[in-house]
């Protein structure tokens, strides 16, 4: 049973006092308390199939090899720019535009990092709390790397575990928007994502996705059907609801282009202490929003064909 763990865990609470802890009493106060807590994160148990977030390498692998591979390579023919802007280590928050009734953008970004990055890392995708209360989704979503978009979750991922996290600040407003509003960014929440990144002193990577808007254009939203089904929204797309639930996955073969912009270092902005500064947080959120918007305009302008890029 987990032999590798025996080295740093003792079987009893206080019979075995490790030497570094004895003299650590003098050294410890120099460090921030949160840094000490970071060292106390549970070790990874090699025999386990899931991690503490409920992520399953096996389930993720199955999806990755089949459906995601198909869409990424042959259906959307994704093209990646600026992958070097995704940090190879340390916590980083990817901030992206969002669209599509069942958004394909998250999976494509995660796959892009796995495929193109010289040092691929798992990407955690923040999703609405709603999914946790919907049967089926609740079971599947954490297994493929989604976590609820709770500030405490983002803080733990970015600061304590130093992971890559993907956030869509537009949230539901982005996926609800209609085809006529394509590539027009909605409001960027209340800047909570900037605050989270600053508190964790993680890098912010603005990310632009072109193609997702055309892959599943939403023509209308039916409010009464939304109330009837209890779903987040009830869109009318070329395939939904006509093909039933599978219509949600029937994307049109639009050409995907993903561009990672230059990262923003939150330490230079003032780091954890400045996270309380609401004005600064809002300014940074605005700045990121306009950078993504600008870049999107440029990418859409250069695109000759929706389907062939």
């Amino acid at each position: 049973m987990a032999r590798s763990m025996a080295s740093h865990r003792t079987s009893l609470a206080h019979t075995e006092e490790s030497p570094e802890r004895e003299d650590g009493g003098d050294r410890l106060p120099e460090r921030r308390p949160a840094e000490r807590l970071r060292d106390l994160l549970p070790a990874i148990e090699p025999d386990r199939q899931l991690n503490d977030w409920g992520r399953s390498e096996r389930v993720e692998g199955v999806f990755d090899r089949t459906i995601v591979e198909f869409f990424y390579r042959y259906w959307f023919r994704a093209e990646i720019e600026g992958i070097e802007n995704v940090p190879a280590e340390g916590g980083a928050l990817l901030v992206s535009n969002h669209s599509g009734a069942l958004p394909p953008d998250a999976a494509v970004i995660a796959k892009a990092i796995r495929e193109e990055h010289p040092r691929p890392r798992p990407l955690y995708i923040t999703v609405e709390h709603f999914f946790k209360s919907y049967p089926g989704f609740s079971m599947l979503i954490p297994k493929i790397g989604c976590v609820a978009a709770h500030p405490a979750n983002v803080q733990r991922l970015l600061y304590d575990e130093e992971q890559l996290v993907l956030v869509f600040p537009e949230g539901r407003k982005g996926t609800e928007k209609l085809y006529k509003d394509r590539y027009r960014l909605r409001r960027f929440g209340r800047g909570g994502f900037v605050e989270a990144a600053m508190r964790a002193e993680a890098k912010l990577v603005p990310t632009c996705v072109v193609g997702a808007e055309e892959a599943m254009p939403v023509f209308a939203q039916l409010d009464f059907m939304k109330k009837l089904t209890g779903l987040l929204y009830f869109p009318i797309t070329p395939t939904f609801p006509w093909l039933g639930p599978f219509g949600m996955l029937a994307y049109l073969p639009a050409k995907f282009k993903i561009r990672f912009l230059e990262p923003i270092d939150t330490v230079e902005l003032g780091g954890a202490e400045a996270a309380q500064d609401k004005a600064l947080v809002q300014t940074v959120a605005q700045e990121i929003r306009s950078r993504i918007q600008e870049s999107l305009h440029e990418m859409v302008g250069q695109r000759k064909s929706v389907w062939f890029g």
Partner: protein
Amino acid sequence: MTEVLPVAPRDPRMRRVLVTGLSTYWGGRLAQALEGFEQVEAIVGVDSRAPRRELERTEYVKVSNQHGLIQRIVRAAEIDTVIDTRLVVNSLAMPPRVAHENNVIGTMNILAACTGSDSPVRKVIFKSSSLYYGSESDDPAFFTEGMRRPHPPRTALERDMVEAEAALEDFASKNPDVTVTNLRFANVLGPDVETGFTRMLSLPLVPMVLGFDPRLQFVHEDDIVHALEHATFHEIPGTFNVAADGVLSLSEAISLVGKVPAPVLPPWGTGLLAGPLRRLGFRIPDEMINLLRFGRGIDNRLFKSSGFRYGYTSREAMIKFGEYLRVQPVMKGVEQGYTYEREVEEFLRWSPHVRRERAGHEGVDADREPLGI
């Protein structure tokens, strides 16, 4: 109430301990364990029911949660450490009214017995439960001690938990010279303790809610006793989560004990179905229904930062429990239970004919080195 501390300093004084809820599993195990420590001068256990574990030098006093009587015991025995292990965390163990009486009124009475300017009590350790946090769809993945539950409590038991902790917090703020340690334990696993989960996992087909695979965290029963000991011998004021490392998904837990998952509970109206199911033998307590859908993860790092180390991860605790489940049918009936006989216990403790200079104790942890201070 909670703050990050450097590794907790040891408190080397001799102490006189009062354990409430001596008949509960934790009270009994804790008293047994404390008997092995030299610097515990006296152990008094109170409960309305007789202890169910063999105790060597613990004094059992049969008294229910009346603060007048407990106060007299506390003063007379000059108790300096009160460890409150009475809390009931399984709503099927007793009717809600009795549980409320025990959990809320009982806590208030015990705390009242410790107050007063001339009270000898210097430390109160309270065994609470992670039920305090509840389980909802918009919970964070890991609860830390500073978080309040995002929604009002749903079940009577959870309400009790919140009220009991409020009483404790009130006591802590009014008695700044008393060290108050509040330990919120995750779901317990182990052969000797019966909870909703242990009962559910011993069924051949383990029911799950269709379409849900909650993340759950457990703690081994030995670690609970060690955690209470740790709080007894260290100065750690504040609230702490006690949960083993690692969060398991329910399906993972079921496969670790070698059972078959049965996703038979409907995703909607689980609560409505729980009543009839209880009559059929699927005894699912109310407070577990949401837990079976949304689960609960707990951040255990603050307690670890006080110097505590767990003996088992959630996974190891689950594997141990699985081993026990396989042996249990073979062992059934072999072991004789212990029954408290007042006359015998009194003879052993007070009769001049008993030779008392015995080497070692026969408590559960007799083989362990007591704290070298």
